[in-house]
Protein backbone atom coordinates (compact mmCIF):
# COMPACT_ATOMS: atom_id res chain seq x y z
CA UNK A 1 0.00 0.00 0.00
CA UNK A 2 1.34 3.39 -0.99
CA UNK A 3 1.61 6.05 1.64
CA UNK A 4 -1.03 8.79 1.70
CA UNK A 5 0.00 12.24 0.54
CA UNK A 6 -0.51 14.57 3.48
CA UNK A 7 -0.24 18.30 3.98
CA UNK A 8 -1.22 20.64 6.79
CA UNK A 9 -3.54 22.48 4.42
CA UNK A 10 -4.77 22.32 0.83
CA UNK A 11 -5.72 25.36 -1.24
CA UNK A 12 -7.86 24.71 -4.33
CA UNK A 13 -6.98 27.23 -7.03
CA UNK A 14 -3.96 29.53 -7.32
CA UNK A 15 -5.84 32.75 -8.03
CA UNK A 16 -5.74 35.92 -5.97
CA UNK A 17 -7.48 34.43 -2.93
CA UNK A 18 -5.83 31.02 -3.10
CA UNK A 19 -2.22 32.18 -3.39
CA UNK A 20 -2.83 34.75 -0.63
CA UNK A 21 -4.08 31.99 1.65
CA UNK A 22 -1.19 29.68 0.75
CA UNK A 23 1.33 32.46 1.34
CA UNK A 24 0.01 33.32 4.80
CA UNK A 25 -0.19 29.69 5.95
CA UNK A 26 3.21 28.73 4.54
CA UNK A 27 4.82 31.74 6.15
CA UNK A 28 3.43 30.54 9.49
CA UNK A 29 5.27 27.27 8.95
CA UNK A 30 2.41 25.16 7.65
CA UNK A 31 2.97 22.61 4.95
CA UNK A 32 0.65 23.82 2.17
CA UNK A 33 -0.41 22.27 -1.15
CA UNK A 34 -1.57 24.87 -3.67
CA UNK A 35 -3.47 22.95 -6.35
CA UNK A 36 -4.02 24.69 -9.70
CA UNK A 37 -5.82 23.24 -12.72
CA UNK A 38 -4.10 25.47 -15.26
CA UNK A 39 -0.69 24.82 -16.74
CA UNK A 40 0.36 27.70 -14.56
CA UNK A 41 -1.39 30.14 -12.23
CA UNK A 42 -3.36 32.84 -14.01
CA UNK A 43 -3.96 30.82 -17.17
CA UNK A 44 -7.66 30.49 -16.40
CA UNK A 45 -8.21 33.95 -15.02
CA UNK A 46 -9.67 36.91 -16.83
CA UNK A 47 -10.78 40.19 -15.31
CA UNK A 48 -11.20 43.92 -16.05
CA UNK A 49 -9.22 45.03 -14.32
CA UNK A 50 -7.44 46.50 -11.40
CA UNK A 51 -5.67 45.13 -8.36
CA UNK A 52 -5.67 46.98 -5.05
CA UNK A 53 -2.42 47.67 -3.23
CA UNK A 54 -4.09 47.88 0.18
CA UNK A 55 -5.02 44.22 -0.19
CA UNK A 56 -1.63 43.11 -1.52
CA UNK A 57 0.10 44.97 1.27
CA UNK A 58 -1.96 43.25 3.95
CA UNK A 59 -0.63 39.91 2.77
CA UNK A 60 2.80 40.96 1.55
CA UNK A 61 3.98 44.19 3.22
CA UNK A 62 7.21 44.43 1.19
CA UNK A 63 5.51 43.71 -2.14
CA UNK A 64 7.06 46.75 -3.80
CA UNK A 65 10.58 45.36 -3.40
CA UNK A 66 9.43 42.19 -5.14
CA UNK A 67 8.60 43.98 -8.37
CA UNK A 68 4.97 42.97 -8.91
CA UNK A 69 4.08 42.83 -12.62
CA UNK A 70 1.48 45.57 -12.42
CA UNK A 71 0.61 47.80 -15.37
CA UNK A 72 -0.25 51.42 -14.57
CA UNK A 73 -1.35 53.11 -11.36
CA UNK A 74 -4.96 54.25 -11.59
CA UNK A 75 -4.55 58.01 -11.40
CA UNK A 76 -7.84 58.84 -13.09
CA UNK A 77 -11.08 57.00 -12.44
CA UNK A 78 -14.76 57.51 -12.94
CA UNK A 79 -17.73 57.06 -15.19
CA UNK A 80 -18.21 57.64 -18.87
CA UNK A 81 -21.75 58.10 -20.10
CA UNK A 82 -22.22 57.08 -23.71
CA UNK A 83 -25.01 58.66 -25.67
CA UNK A 84 -26.00 57.53 -29.13
CA UNK A 85 -23.00 59.30 -30.62
CA UNK A 86 -21.77 61.41 -27.71
CA UNK A 87 -19.75 60.85 -24.59
CA UNK A 88 -19.88 62.62 -21.24
CA UNK A 89 -16.94 61.95 -18.96
CA UNK A 90 -17.13 62.19 -15.22
CA UNK A 91 -13.71 61.28 -13.94
CA UNK A 92 -11.56 62.37 -11.07
CA UNK A 93 -7.81 62.71 -10.87
CA UNK A 94 -5.40 64.00 -8.25
CA UNK A 95 -6.36 64.00 -4.59
CA UNK A 96 -6.57 60.47 -3.21
CA UNK A 97 -5.72 59.14 -6.68
CA UNK A 98 -2.37 60.87 -6.59
CA UNK A 99 -0.92 58.86 -3.72
CA UNK A 100 2.21 56.84 -4.05
CA UNK A 101 1.74 53.92 -4.26
CA UNK A 102 -1.67 54.26 -5.87
CA UNK A 103 -4.59 52.45 -4.30
CA UNK A 104 -5.23 50.52 -7.52
CA UNK A 105 -3.09 49.39 -10.42
CA UNK A 106 -4.27 48.03 -13.72
CA UNK A 107 -3.00 44.52 -14.34
CA UNK A 108 -3.16 41.45 -16.57
CA UNK A 109 -3.91 38.29 -14.65
CA UNK A 110 -1.78 35.93 -16.72
CA UNK A 111 1.18 38.10 -15.70
CA UNK A 112 0.21 38.97 -12.14
CA UNK A 113 -1.05 35.61 -10.87
CA UNK A 114 2.14 33.60 -11.55
CA UNK A 115 4.08 36.24 -9.61
CA UNK A 116 1.53 36.14 -6.80
CA UNK A 117 1.74 32.34 -6.59
CA UNK A 118 5.53 32.57 -6.70
CA UNK A 119 5.44 34.66 -3.49
CA UNK A 120 3.61 31.75 -1.85
CA UNK A 121 6.09 29.23 -3.27
CA UNK A 122 9.01 31.33 -2.03
CA UNK A 123 7.85 30.91 1.56
CA UNK A 124 7.37 27.18 1.10
CA UNK A 125 3.93 26.53 -0.39
CA UNK A 126 4.01 23.54 -2.73
CA UNK A 127 2.40 24.37 -6.08
CA UNK A 128 0.73 21.44 -7.84
CA UNK A 129 -0.22 22.67 -11.32
CA UNK A 130 -2.15 20.90 -14.11
CA UNK A 131 -4.33 19.26 -11.49
CA UNK A 132 -8.10 19.59 -11.22
CA UNK A 133 -9.76 18.92 -7.88
CA UNK A 134 -12.94 16.95 -8.51
CA UNK A 135 -14.18 16.03 -5.03
CA UNK A 136 -13.50 15.97 -1.31
CA UNK A 137 -12.45 13.23 1.01
CA UNK A 138 -14.70 13.30 4.05
CA UNK A 139 -14.69 11.53 7.37
CA UNK A 140 -17.72 9.55 8.52
CA UNK A 141 -19.02 12.62 10.36
CA UNK A 142 -18.76 14.75 7.21
CA UNK A 143 -15.60 16.58 8.24
CA UNK A 144 -13.47 17.48 5.19
CA UNK A 145 -10.13 15.69 5.41
CA UNK A 146 -8.74 16.09 1.90
CA UNK A 147 -9.42 16.34 -1.81
CA UNK A 148 -9.64 14.02 -4.79
CA UNK A 149 -7.84 15.24 -7.90
CA UNK A 150 -8.01 14.00 -11.48
CA UNK A 151 -4.52 12.49 -11.26
CA UNK A 152 -4.07 8.74 -10.85
CA UNK A 153 -4.07 7.98 -7.12
CA UNK A 154 -4.79 11.67 -6.81
CA UNK A 155 -6.01 11.83 -3.21
CA UNK A 156 -4.39 14.52 -1.08
CA UNK A 157 -5.08 14.63 2.65
CA UNK A 158 -5.12 17.66 4.94
CA UNK A 159 -7.24 18.62 7.96
CA UNK A 160 -8.22 21.91 6.34
CA UNK A 161 -9.08 22.85 2.73
CA UNK A 162 -9.48 26.42 1.48
CA UNK A 163 -11.76 26.50 -1.54
CA UNK A 164 -10.75 29.25 -3.96
CA UNK A 165 -12.18 27.57 -7.02
CA UNK A 166 -13.60 30.68 -8.65
CA UNK A 167 -17.04 31.60 -9.87
CA UNK A 168 -17.99 28.10 -11.05
CA UNK A 169 -18.26 26.87 -7.48
CA UNK A 170 -18.93 23.22 -8.15
CA UNK A 171 -16.96 22.05 -5.12
CA UNK A 172 -18.74 24.51 -2.85
CA UNK A 173 -22.02 23.09 -4.13
CA UNK A 174 -20.74 19.56 -3.65
CA UNK A 175 -20.12 20.31 0.03
CA UNK A 176 -23.72 21.47 0.34
CA UNK A 177 -22.65 24.99 1.33
CA UNK A 178 -25.11 26.40 -1.19
CA UNK A 179 -28.22 24.64 -2.41
CA UNK A 180 -28.44 26.10 -5.90
CA UNK A 181 -26.25 26.72 -8.91
CA UNK A 182 -25.51 30.22 -10.22
CA UNK A 183 -28.67 31.98 -11.36
CA UNK A 184 -28.32 33.62 -14.82
CA UNK A 185 -30.05 36.75 -13.52
CA UNK A 186 -27.39 37.11 -10.83
CA UNK A 187 -24.23 36.58 -12.86
CA UNK A 188 -22.76 38.91 -15.43
CA UNK A 189 -20.89 37.54 -18.39
CA UNK A 190 -17.91 39.82 -18.84
CA UNK A 191 -16.00 39.81 -22.10
CA UNK A 192 -13.15 41.99 -23.24
CA UNK A 193 -10.42 42.53 -25.72
CA UNK A 194 -6.85 43.31 -24.78
CA UNK A 195 -5.74 45.68 -27.53
CA UNK A 196 -2.08 46.52 -28.15
CA UNK A 197 -1.09 50.14 -28.77
CA UNK A 198 2.23 51.96 -28.42
CA UNK A 199 2.69 53.49 -24.97
CA UNK A 200 2.96 57.01 -26.41
CA UNK A 201 -0.25 56.53 -28.32
CA UNK A 202 -2.10 55.48 -25.14
CA UNK A 203 -0.71 58.49 -23.29
CA UNK A 204 -1.84 60.83 -26.06
CA UNK A 205 -5.28 59.36 -26.55
CA UNK A 206 -6.13 59.37 -22.86
CA UNK A 207 -4.33 62.55 -21.89
CA UNK A 208 -1.88 60.74 -19.61
CA UNK A 209 1.54 62.36 -19.13
CA UNK A 210 3.44 59.06 -19.02
CA UNK A 211 3.09 55.38 -18.16
CA UNK A 212 3.18 56.30 -14.48
CA UNK A 213 -0.40 57.43 -15.00
CA UNK A 214 -3.41 55.35 -15.92
CA UNK A 215 -7.14 55.44 -16.33
CA UNK A 216 -9.93 53.13 -15.16
CA UNK A 217 -13.51 53.94 -16.08
CA UNK A 218 -16.91 52.31 -16.00
CA UNK A 219 -18.90 53.02 -19.12
CA UNK A 220 -22.68 53.29 -19.04
CA UNK A 221 -25.23 53.98 -21.69
CA UNK A 222 -25.56 53.25 -25.38
CA UNK A 223 -23.28 50.20 -25.30
CA UNK A 224 -25.76 48.06 -23.39
CA UNK A 225 -28.71 48.71 -25.74
CA UNK A 226 -30.87 49.77 -22.81
CA UNK A 227 -30.31 46.44 -21.06
CA UNK A 228 -28.57 45.85 -17.73
CA UNK A 229 -24.88 46.00 -18.60
CA UNK A 230 -21.79 48.11 -18.15
CA UNK A 231 -18.57 48.65 -20.00
CA UNK A 232 -15.06 49.43 -18.87
CA UNK A 233 -11.78 50.79 -20.14
CA UNK A 234 -8.48 50.19 -18.37
CA UNK A 235 -5.16 51.49 -19.64
CA UNK A 236 -2.24 49.08 -19.34
CA UNK A 237 1.34 50.04 -20.19
CA UNK A 238 1.18 49.06 -23.85
CA UNK A 239 -2.36 47.85 -24.20
CA UNK A 240 -5.95 48.65 -23.37
CA UNK A 241 -8.41 46.35 -21.64
CA UNK A 242 -11.78 47.23 -23.14
CA UNK A 243 -14.81 45.15 -22.38
CA UNK A 244 -18.26 44.96 -20.93
CA UNK A 245 -20.41 42.87 -18.67
CA UNK A 246 -24.04 41.98 -19.33
CA UNK A 247 -26.33 39.93 -17.13
CA UNK A 248 -26.39 36.37 -18.43
CA UNK A 249 -30.19 36.03 -18.42
CA UNK A 250 -30.38 39.08 -20.67
CA UNK A 251 -27.87 37.64 -23.15
CA UNK A 252 -29.84 34.39 -23.19
CA UNK A 253 -33.32 35.88 -23.48
CA UNK A 254 -32.40 38.39 -26.18
CA UNK A 255 -30.03 35.89 -27.83
CA UNK A 256 -27.21 38.38 -28.09
CA UNK A 257 -23.71 37.44 -29.12
CA UNK A 258 -21.24 38.89 -26.61
CA UNK A 259 -18.55 39.49 -29.23
CA UNK A 260 -20.99 41.42 -31.40
CA UNK A 261 -22.02 43.67 -28.54
CA UNK A 262 -18.35 44.26 -27.81
CA UNK A 263 -17.67 45.09 -31.46
CA UNK A 264 -20.58 47.55 -31.47
CA UNK A 265 -19.10 49.21 -28.38
CA UNK A 266 -15.64 49.38 -29.96
CA UNK A 267 -17.17 50.97 -33.07
CA UNK A 268 -19.03 53.65 -31.10
CA UNK A 269 -18.00 57.06 -32.51
CA UNK A 270 -16.55 58.09 -29.12
CA UNK A 271 -14.70 54.81 -28.49
CA UNK A 272 -13.41 53.94 -31.97
CA UNK A 273 -10.72 56.68 -32.01
CA UNK A 274 -9.35 55.33 -28.72
CA UNK A 275 -8.77 51.82 -30.08
CA UNK A 276 -8.00 52.79 -33.68
CA UNK A 277 -5.19 50.76 -35.29
CA UNK A 278 -4.82 48.71 -32.12
CA UNK A 279 -3.90 45.07 -32.51
CA UNK A 280 -6.01 42.40 -30.82
CA UNK A 281 -3.81 40.60 -28.30
CA UNK A 282 -6.48 38.52 -26.68
CA UNK A 283 -10.21 38.10 -26.46
CA UNK A 284 -11.77 36.29 -23.53
CA UNK A 285 -14.73 35.96 -21.21
CA UNK A 286 -15.48 35.17 -17.60
CA UNK A 287 -18.51 35.09 -15.33
CA UNK A 288 -18.82 37.56 -12.45
CA UNK A 289 -20.95 36.51 -9.48
CA UNK A 290 -23.02 39.63 -8.90
CA UNK A 291 -25.61 38.13 -6.57
CA UNK A 292 -23.58 39.43 -3.66
CA UNK A 293 -24.66 38.91 -0.09
CA UNK A 294 -27.90 37.13 -0.92
CA UNK A 295 -26.13 34.58 -3.11
CA UNK A 296 -23.29 33.79 -0.74
CA UNK A 297 -22.82 30.19 0.24
CA UNK A 298 -22.29 29.24 3.84
CA UNK A 299 -18.65 30.22 4.17
CA UNK A 300 -17.32 27.27 6.14
CA UNK A 301 -17.90 23.76 7.35
CA UNK A 302 -15.79 21.36 9.36
CA UNK A 303 -12.36 21.36 7.70
CA UNK A 304 -13.17 23.79 4.88
CA UNK A 305 -13.65 27.47 4.06
CA UNK A 306 -14.76 29.25 0.87
CA UNK A 307 -13.09 32.45 -0.40
CA UNK A 308 -13.24 34.88 -3.33
CA UNK A 309 -15.52 34.48 -6.36
CA UNK A 310 -16.59 31.02 -5.15
CA UNK A 311 -18.16 32.85 -2.21
CA UNK A 312 -19.65 35.62 -4.44
CA UNK A 313 -17.38 38.24 -2.89
CA UNK A 314 -17.95 40.93 -5.50
CA UNK A 315 -19.21 44.47 -5.17
CA UNK A 316 -20.57 45.03 -8.67
CA UNK A 317 -21.06 48.80 -8.45
CA UNK A 318 -17.46 49.46 -7.42
CA UNK A 319 -15.93 46.73 -9.56
CA UNK A 320 -14.42 45.37 -6.36
CA UNK A 321 -13.65 41.71 -5.99
CA UNK A 322 -9.93 41.25 -6.34
CA UNK A 323 -9.33 43.04 -3.04
CA UNK A 324 -11.98 41.03 -1.22
CA UNK A 325 -10.53 37.81 -2.62
CA UNK A 326 -7.04 38.58 -1.35
CA UNK A 327 -8.19 39.64 2.12
CA UNK A 328 -10.63 36.76 2.46
CA UNK A 329 -7.78 34.41 1.53
CA UNK A 330 -5.69 35.91 4.27
CA UNK A 331 -8.47 35.66 6.88
CA UNK A 332 -9.21 32.04 5.97
CA UNK A 333 -5.48 31.32 6.28
CA UNK A 334 -5.33 32.93 9.72
CA UNK A 335 -8.27 30.84 10.81
CA UNK A 336 -6.50 27.74 9.50
CA UNK A 337 -3.32 28.68 11.39
CA UNK A 338 -5.26 29.04 14.65
CA UNK A 339 -6.94 25.70 14.01
CA UNK A 340 -3.58 24.11 13.19
CA UNK A 341 -2.04 25.43 16.39
CA UNK A 342 -4.74 23.96 18.62
CA UNK A 343 -5.51 20.94 16.45
CA UNK A 344 -9.20 21.81 16.17
CA UNK A 345 -10.61 21.93 12.63
CA UNK A 346 -14.24 21.53 13.60
CA UNK A 347 -17.01 23.61 12.11
CA UNK A 348 -16.93 25.72 15.26
CA UNK A 349 -13.24 26.47 14.75
CA UNK A 350 -13.84 27.42 11.10
CA UNK A 351 -16.61 29.81 12.16
CA UNK A 352 -13.87 32.24 13.23
CA UNK A 353 -13.35 32.92 9.52
CA UNK A 354 -16.79 34.46 9.15
CA UNK A 355 -16.33 36.49 12.33
CA UNK A 356 -13.11 37.89 10.90
CA UNK A 357 -14.87 38.77 7.63
CA UNK A 358 -17.48 40.76 9.58
CA UNK A 359 -14.70 42.82 11.11
CA UNK A 360 -13.63 43.99 7.65
CA UNK A 361 -15.29 45.93 4.85
CA UNK A 362 -15.97 42.66 3.05
CA UNK A 363 -19.14 41.43 4.73
CA UNK A 364 -20.09 44.93 5.87
CA UNK A 365 -20.07 46.23 2.28
CA UNK A 366 -21.63 43.14 0.78
CA UNK A 367 -24.49 43.35 3.25
CA UNK A 368 -24.94 47.06 2.61
CA UNK A 369 -25.08 46.50 -1.16
CA UNK A 370 -27.24 43.38 -0.91
CA UNK A 371 -30.02 44.96 -2.99
CA UNK A 372 -27.85 46.53 -5.63
CA UNK A 373 -27.79 43.79 -8.27
CA UNK A 374 -31.57 43.55 -8.06
CA UNK A 375 -31.74 47.31 -8.26
CA UNK A 376 -30.19 47.50 -11.74
CA UNK A 377 -32.37 44.64 -12.88
CA UNK A 378 -35.44 46.66 -11.88
CA UNK A 379 -34.14 50.07 -12.99
CA UNK A 380 -32.63 49.62 -16.47
CA UNK A 381 -33.09 53.38 -17.03
CA UNK A 382 -29.75 53.86 -15.29
CA UNK A 383 -28.16 52.07 -18.22
CA UNK A 384 -30.04 53.93 -20.90
CA UNK A 385 -32.28 56.91 -20.10
CA UNK A 386 -29.93 58.78 -17.77
CA UNK A 387 -26.66 58.37 -19.70
CA UNK A 388 -28.44 59.63 -22.82
CA UNK A 389 -30.03 62.45 -20.87
CA UNK A 390 -26.68 63.59 -19.48
CA UNK A 391 -25.26 63.79 -23.00
CA UNK A 392 -28.24 65.66 -24.40
CA UNK A 393 -28.46 67.98 -21.41
CA UNK A 394 -24.80 68.97 -21.42
CA UNK A 395 -24.82 69.17 -25.21
CA UNK A 396 -27.78 71.52 -25.08
CA UNK A 397 -26.33 73.52 -22.23
CA UNK A 398 -23.16 74.28 -24.10
CA UNK A 399 -24.59 74.87 -27.57
CA UNK A 400 -27.73 76.89 -26.99
CA UNK A 401 -26.14 80.31 -26.75
CA UNK A 402 -28.30 83.04 -28.17
CA UNK A 403 -31.45 81.43 -26.82
CA UNK A 404 -33.17 82.84 -23.74
CA UNK A 405 -32.04 80.79 -20.73
CA UNK A 406 -35.66 80.06 -19.86
CA UNK A 407 -35.96 78.21 -23.15
CA UNK A 408 -32.69 76.40 -22.53
CA UNK A 409 -33.88 75.07 -19.19
CA UNK A 410 -37.23 74.11 -20.66
CA UNK A 411 -35.36 72.09 -23.27
CA UNK A 412 -33.26 70.45 -20.60
CA UNK A 413 -36.30 69.50 -18.58
CA UNK A 414 -37.95 68.26 -21.76
CA UNK A 415 -34.93 66.12 -22.55
CA UNK A 416 -35.47 64.31 -19.28
CA UNK A 417 -39.25 64.17 -18.99
CA UNK A 418 -39.66 62.94 -22.56
CA UNK A 419 -37.74 59.89 -21.37
CA UNK A 420 -38.82 59.58 -17.76
CA UNK A 421 -41.52 61.51 -15.85
CA UNK A 422 -39.98 63.82 -13.27
CA UNK A 423 -41.57 62.10 -10.29
CA UNK A 424 -40.31 58.72 -11.47
CA UNK A 425 -36.84 60.19 -11.92
CA UNK A 426 -36.88 61.44 -8.34
CA UNK A 427 -38.05 57.98 -7.24
CA UNK A 428 -35.19 56.39 -9.20
CA UNK A 429 -32.65 58.52 -7.38
CA UNK A 430 -34.12 57.55 -4.02
CA UNK A 431 -34.11 53.84 -4.97
CA UNK A 432 -30.51 54.19 -6.11
CA UNK A 433 -29.54 55.72 -2.78
CA UNK A 434 -31.37 52.95 -0.94
CA UNK A 435 -29.61 50.23 -2.92
CA UNK A 436 -26.20 51.77 -2.31
CA UNK A 437 -26.72 52.76 1.33
CA UNK A 438 -28.48 49.51 2.17
CA UNK A 439 -31.53 51.28 3.63
Amino acid at each position, binding site marked *: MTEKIRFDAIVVGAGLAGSAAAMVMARAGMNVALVERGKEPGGKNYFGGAIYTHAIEEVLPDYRDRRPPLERPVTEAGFWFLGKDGLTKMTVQGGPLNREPADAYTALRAHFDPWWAKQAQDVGAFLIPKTTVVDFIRAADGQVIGVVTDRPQGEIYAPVVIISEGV*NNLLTQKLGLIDHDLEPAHVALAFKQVIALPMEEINNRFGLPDDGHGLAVSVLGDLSLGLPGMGFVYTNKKSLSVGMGVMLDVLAEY*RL*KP*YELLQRYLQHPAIAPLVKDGQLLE*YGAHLIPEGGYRDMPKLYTGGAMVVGDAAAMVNALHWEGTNMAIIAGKLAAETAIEAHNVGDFSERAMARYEEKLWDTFILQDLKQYRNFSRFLEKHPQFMDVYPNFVNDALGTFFTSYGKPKKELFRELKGALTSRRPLLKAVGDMISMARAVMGW
Partner: protein
Amino acid sequence: MAMKRGDAFVGKELPEEVKKTIPRVYVDDLLISLKYYVDEEQSHLWIKEPETCNRCQYKPCLSFCPVGVYTLDNEGKIQVAYQACVECGSCRVACPYNNIGWKLPRGGFGVAYKFG
Protein backbone atom coordinates in the same frame (compact mmCIF):
# COMPACT_ATOMS: atom_id res chain seq x y z
CA MET B 1 -36.29 37.34 -10.76
CA ALA B 2 -35.08 34.06 -12.09
CA MET B 3 -34.80 33.24 -15.77
CA LYS B 4 -37.69 31.02 -16.84
CA ARG B 5 -36.70 27.44 -17.52
CA GLY B 6 -37.71 24.69 -19.89
CA ASP B 7 -40.74 25.26 -22.09
CA ALA B 8 -41.50 28.42 -20.09
CA PHE B 9 -38.34 30.11 -21.37
CA VAL B 10 -39.36 33.08 -23.49
CA GLY B 11 -37.11 34.78 -25.98
CA LYS B 12 -37.32 38.57 -26.04
CA GLU B 13 -36.75 40.93 -28.94
CA LEU B 14 -34.98 44.25 -29.11
CA PRO B 15 -36.64 46.94 -31.22
CA GLU B 16 -35.70 46.43 -34.87
CA GLU B 17 -33.93 49.82 -35.08
CA VAL B 18 -31.69 48.79 -32.16
CA LYS B 19 -31.07 45.31 -33.50
CA LYS B 20 -29.84 46.58 -36.83
CA THR B 21 -27.06 48.56 -35.10
CA ILE B 22 -25.37 45.32 -33.97
CA PRO B 23 -22.57 44.40 -36.35
CA ARG B 24 -22.03 40.83 -37.58
CA VAL B 25 -18.82 39.38 -36.19
CA TYR B 26 -17.22 36.05 -37.02
CA VAL B 27 -16.02 34.73 -33.71
CA ASP B 28 -13.18 32.79 -35.36
CA ASP B 29 -11.51 36.14 -36.02
CA LEU B 30 -11.28 36.56 -32.23
CA LEU B 31 -10.45 32.96 -31.35
CA ILE B 32 -7.14 33.14 -33.18
CA SER B 33 -5.95 35.37 -30.33
CA LEU B 34 -6.45 32.56 -27.79
CA LYS B 35 -4.12 29.81 -26.72
CA TYR B 36 -5.45 26.36 -25.87
CA TYR B 37 -4.13 23.01 -24.78
CA VAL B 38 -6.80 20.88 -26.36
CA ASP B 39 -7.66 17.57 -24.73
CA GLU B 40 -7.94 15.39 -27.83
CA GLU B 41 -9.17 12.41 -25.83
CA GLN B 42 -12.25 13.75 -24.13
CA SER B 43 -14.66 16.66 -24.29
CA HIS B 44 -15.55 18.41 -21.05
CA LEU B 45 -18.84 19.60 -22.59
CA TRP B 46 -21.68 17.49 -23.88
CA ILE B 47 -25.36 17.61 -24.74
CA LYS B 48 -27.20 15.44 -22.23
CA GLU B 49 -30.27 14.61 -24.34
CA PRO B 50 -30.11 15.63 -28.02
CA GLU B 51 -33.90 15.23 -28.21
CA THR B 52 -34.33 18.04 -25.70
CA CYS B 53 -32.56 20.50 -28.02
CA ASN B 54 -35.18 19.80 -30.68
CA ARG B 55 -37.82 20.96 -28.24
CA CYS B 56 -35.91 24.11 -27.40
CA GLN B 57 -37.51 26.84 -29.46
CA TYR B 58 -35.01 29.66 -28.94
CA LYS B 59 -31.68 27.82 -28.60
CA PRO B 60 -29.99 30.70 -26.75
CA CYS B 61 -26.70 28.75 -26.47
CA LEU B 62 -26.13 29.53 -30.16
CA SER B 63 -25.81 33.19 -29.15
CA PHE B 64 -24.73 33.72 -25.54
CA CYS B 65 -21.65 31.49 -25.64
CA PRO B 66 -18.86 34.08 -25.85
CA VAL B 67 -16.72 31.86 -28.08
CA GLY B 68 -19.40 30.29 -30.25
CA VAL B 69 -18.93 26.70 -29.03
CA TYR B 70 -22.49 25.80 -29.99
CA THR B 71 -23.56 25.75 -33.63
CA LEU B 72 -26.27 24.06 -35.67
CA ASP B 73 -25.30 21.50 -38.29
CA ASN B 74 -27.13 20.92 -41.57
CA GLU B 75 -29.61 18.63 -39.90
CA GLY B 76 -30.44 21.15 -37.21
CA LYS B 77 -28.48 19.31 -34.56
CA ILE B 78 -26.40 21.17 -31.98
CA GLN B 79 -22.66 20.72 -32.47
CA VAL B 80 -20.28 21.27 -29.56
CA ALA B 81 -16.84 22.69 -30.46
CA TYR B 82 -15.47 22.21 -26.94
CA GLN B 83 -11.96 23.00 -28.21
CA ALA B 84 -12.87 26.72 -28.29
CA CYS B 85 -14.31 26.79 -24.75
CA VAL B 86 -12.92 29.38 -22.33
CA GLU B 87 -14.57 27.58 -19.37
CA CYS B 88 -16.71 30.55 -18.34
CA GLY B 89 -19.64 28.37 -17.26
CA SER B 90 -22.40 30.34 -19.03
CA CYS B 91 -23.81 27.32 -20.86
CA ARG B 92 -23.87 25.26 -17.69
CA VAL B 93 -26.22 27.69 -15.98
CA ALA B 94 -28.09 29.43 -18.82
CA CYS B 95 -29.27 26.48 -20.95
CA PRO B 96 -33.04 26.79 -20.42
CA TYR B 97 -33.36 23.00 -20.20
CA ASN B 98 -30.23 22.43 -18.13
CA ASN B 99 -29.26 20.12 -20.96
CA ILE B 100 -25.57 20.91 -21.23
CA GLY B 101 -23.15 18.65 -19.39
CA TRP B 102 -20.20 20.64 -18.09
CA LYS B 103 -17.11 19.80 -16.16
CA LEU B 104 -13.70 21.38 -15.86
CA PRO B 105 -11.17 20.15 -18.41
CA ARG B 106 -8.60 17.73 -17.08
CA GLY B 107 -5.73 19.44 -15.31
CA GLY B 108 -3.43 21.28 -17.72
CA PHE B 109 -5.91 21.27 -20.60
CA GLY B 110 -8.21 23.95 -21.96
CA VAL B 111 -7.77 27.66 -22.39
CA ALA B 112 -4.48 29.25 -21.31
CA TYR B 113 -4.78 33.01 -21.21
CA LYS B 114 -1.60 34.86 -22.13
CA PHE B 115 -2.79 38.25 -20.87
CA GLY B 116 -5.97 37.77 -18.85
